[in-house]
């Protein structure tokens, strides 16, 4: 029985990210003959002596023409141990939009740097965004190690600098791993390299295969956004009324006391149904149908939660927004908020601060939030909604901000989620207000 690891890669074309991803696919034999033929042909057409593995992953024609990637691409590879879903996020263009998208479901982030350049501004930004989004683990691939003559000192210096940055963002040291690689030559990607005898750690693939996958938040209180009410109205199932959904957090058993929010009505779970039969227990990540003891009014948009530990119901809250639209956000904007399975009207009442993810500092009361900027805002909702803090639960602490008129997605929203800030002149902020991604070991990404 293999399990699934979702990871996101971040870095730029110049760092050789497409080549690294191509190398992972190539060396795990996830590239099939006809695809490979096309790459060999295209490489030869361009006068290249060896196949350009980045051609395996540069998808759209407009991207190939410009030699850049412009959108998140999903790649699939598997080893006997694990299946992998890799969200490949480009670095230069729209980096926040892409990194936020890839990170929202990732259990691990792979950042890439050029060994000749070391940790650069973009690396720090990407790491900050991954930390904010609660990605539990980071890998730094120090690429082009061949171009610094496989120099141990260079690698150690970069590794040390990155670990310091990641711990400042709230990561524990064992959640961060640095690996010297050459995507082009294949060193330490899949095969251990003879050129780095001083490196005793795992290859990138070995690490991906063996890194603990953060468990679904089974220990967390039960959360179940109702997607759909199943009422067959057939002779066989005349009075059947089931609430269909995906368990967002915790576990549920028949007999458990629950509360329906926002109404506050209480009942008891009588049955957990699936087409494969009744379950004695369901846990985070599972799609099931719940039947309750009492005939109470429940519809799509409601949240069924553990009666003993329910989220706060509120129409007024603070959140961090990653602004993804061309049109800037200004205070007073009317938007839609989609949280769980409920969409409500909302107003952004105040822009509190804007995050400077380069300096890990913030700017108070910005006049607007522009494309790819991250900031804290206050929101008022037209109706009350049950909210968890994002650091407590990624699934029930996240929301979309949607344009009322054209329906486009304007922002990724995180309930609460303090920005990872450094105090002035302090190298590490263990006592500061940084989000602590190691706490996110309790939460899990999408299914």
């Amino acid at each position: 029985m293999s399990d699934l690891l979702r990871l996101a890669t971040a870095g730029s074309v110049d760092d050789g990210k497409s080549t690294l991803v191509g190398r992972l696919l190539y060396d795990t034999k996830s590239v099939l003959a006809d695809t490979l033929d096309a790459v060999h042909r295209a490489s030869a057409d361009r006068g290249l002596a060896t196949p350009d593995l980045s051609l395996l992953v540069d998808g759209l024609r407009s991207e190939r023409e410009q030699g850049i990637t412009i959108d998140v691409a999903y790649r699939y590879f598997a080893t006997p141990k694990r299946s992998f879903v890799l969200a490949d996020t480009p670095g230069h263009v729209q980096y926040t939009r892409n990194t936020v998208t890839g990170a929202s479901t990732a259990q691990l982030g792979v950042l890439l740097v050029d060994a000749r350049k070391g940790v650069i501004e973009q690396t720090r930004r990407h790491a900050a965004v991954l930390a904010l989004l609660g990605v539990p683990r980071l890998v730094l691939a120090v690429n082009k190690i061949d171009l610094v003559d496989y120099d141990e000192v260079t690698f150690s210096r970069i590794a040390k600098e990155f670990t310091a940055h990641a711990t400042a963002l709230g990561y524990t040291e064992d959640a961060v791993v640095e690996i010297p690689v050459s995507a082009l030559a294949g060193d330490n990607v899949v095969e251990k390299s003879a050129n780095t005898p001083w490196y005793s750690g795992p290859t990138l693939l070995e690490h991906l295969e063996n890194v603990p996958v953060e468990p679904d938040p089974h220990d967390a209180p039960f959360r179940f956004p109702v997607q759909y009410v199943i009422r067959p109205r057939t002779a066989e199932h005349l009075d059947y009324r089931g609430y269909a959904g995906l368990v967002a957090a915790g576990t549920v058993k028949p007999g458990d006391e629950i509360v329906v929010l926002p109404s506050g009505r209480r009942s008891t779970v009588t049955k957990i149904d699936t087409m494969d039969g009744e379950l004695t227990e369901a846990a985070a990540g599972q799609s099931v149908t719940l039947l309750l003891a009492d005939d109470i009014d429940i519809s799509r948009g409601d949240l069924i939660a553990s009666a003993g530990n329910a989220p706060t119901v509120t129409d007024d809250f603070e959140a961090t927004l990653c602004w993804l639209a061309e049109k800037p956000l200004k205070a007073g904007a009317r938007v839609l908020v989609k949280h769980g399975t409920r969409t409500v009207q909302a107003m952004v009442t105040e822009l509190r601060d804007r995050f400077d993810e380069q300096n890990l500092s913030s700017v108070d009361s910005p006049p607007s939030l522009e494309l790819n900027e991250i900031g804290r805002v206050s929101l008022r909702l037209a109706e009350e909604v049950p909210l968890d803090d994002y650091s407590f639960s990624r699934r029930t602490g996240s929301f979309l901000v949607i344009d009322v008129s054209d329906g486009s997605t304007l922002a990724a929203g995180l309930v609460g989620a303090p920005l990872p800030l450094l105090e002035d002149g302090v190298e590490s902020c263990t006592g500061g207000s940084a989000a602590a991604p190691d706490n996110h070991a309790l939460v899990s990404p999408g299914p």
Partner: protein
Amino acid sequence: MTLALDTLGRLESEAIHIFREVAGEFDRPVILFSGGKDSTLLLHLAIKAFYPAPVPFPLLHVDTGHNFDEVIEFRDRVVAQHGLRLEVAKVQDWIDDGRLEERPDGTRNPLQTVPLLDSITQHKFDAVFGGGRRDEERARAKERIFSLRTAFGQWDPKRQRPELWNLYNGRHRAGEHVRVFPLSNWTELDVWNYIEREGIELPDIYYSHQRDVFLRDGMWLAEGPWGTAREGETLQRKTVRYRTVGDGSCTGAVESDAADIHAVIAEVAASRLTERGATRADDRLSEAAMEDRKREGYF
């Protein structure tokens, strides 16, 4: 007792979640159903998502008239068995009344787009489920699970929305629709492993059988209403199976002895050819073939 889901369990749970989101948010969804393995899997997951209630959507098949008899027979049997509603849009009807013209090469696969879009408009479908997977082809690697289409069915990469967590935004303007791909994160091997695990029945032609075929452009094509061997091509009896079952004029068989699901899985696991590249002439036209067809409103 461990409650951790394995890979197939996670993929199944994700697909069921997607079906229920669409049922909750759209007025007139439809499932594209050809009787092929991906759409059969799609239907199986839809049935699971709404059990014990019936699937709350109709099915739509764009029939090129060049389909394999075994697949059409299978399609109709599955529809009857589950008491489903099937709409069939026949490419032949569009040719007969002049809305479409037969292509010089006789291939009808590219002709599916117009009947598909016409049917979507006529029935006011606002969500269209397809069996597309992101591992199939490079242009699909960037496809969303909810893919917004214009009133002309077109896919504009710039208007696609970022997909965050498992929160899908299906808002669209009147006349626009959303293509929904619940199998986005499945690989070909996942599909076959799941078909085995669930005991899902497929048309026989996915398993090895004897068939008269001829070699064209490196593919074994069968004879049918779409034509037969031309001069210089020889019809010969081979043991073959199909990895995809599209339009007969451009879907090739592969030589195979894989007579059951276990043998097919072993073959797919060892295969060095992607299913599309191996057997679909329409994807081999140009490197950007899929990207172009997608912009036009094909999947």
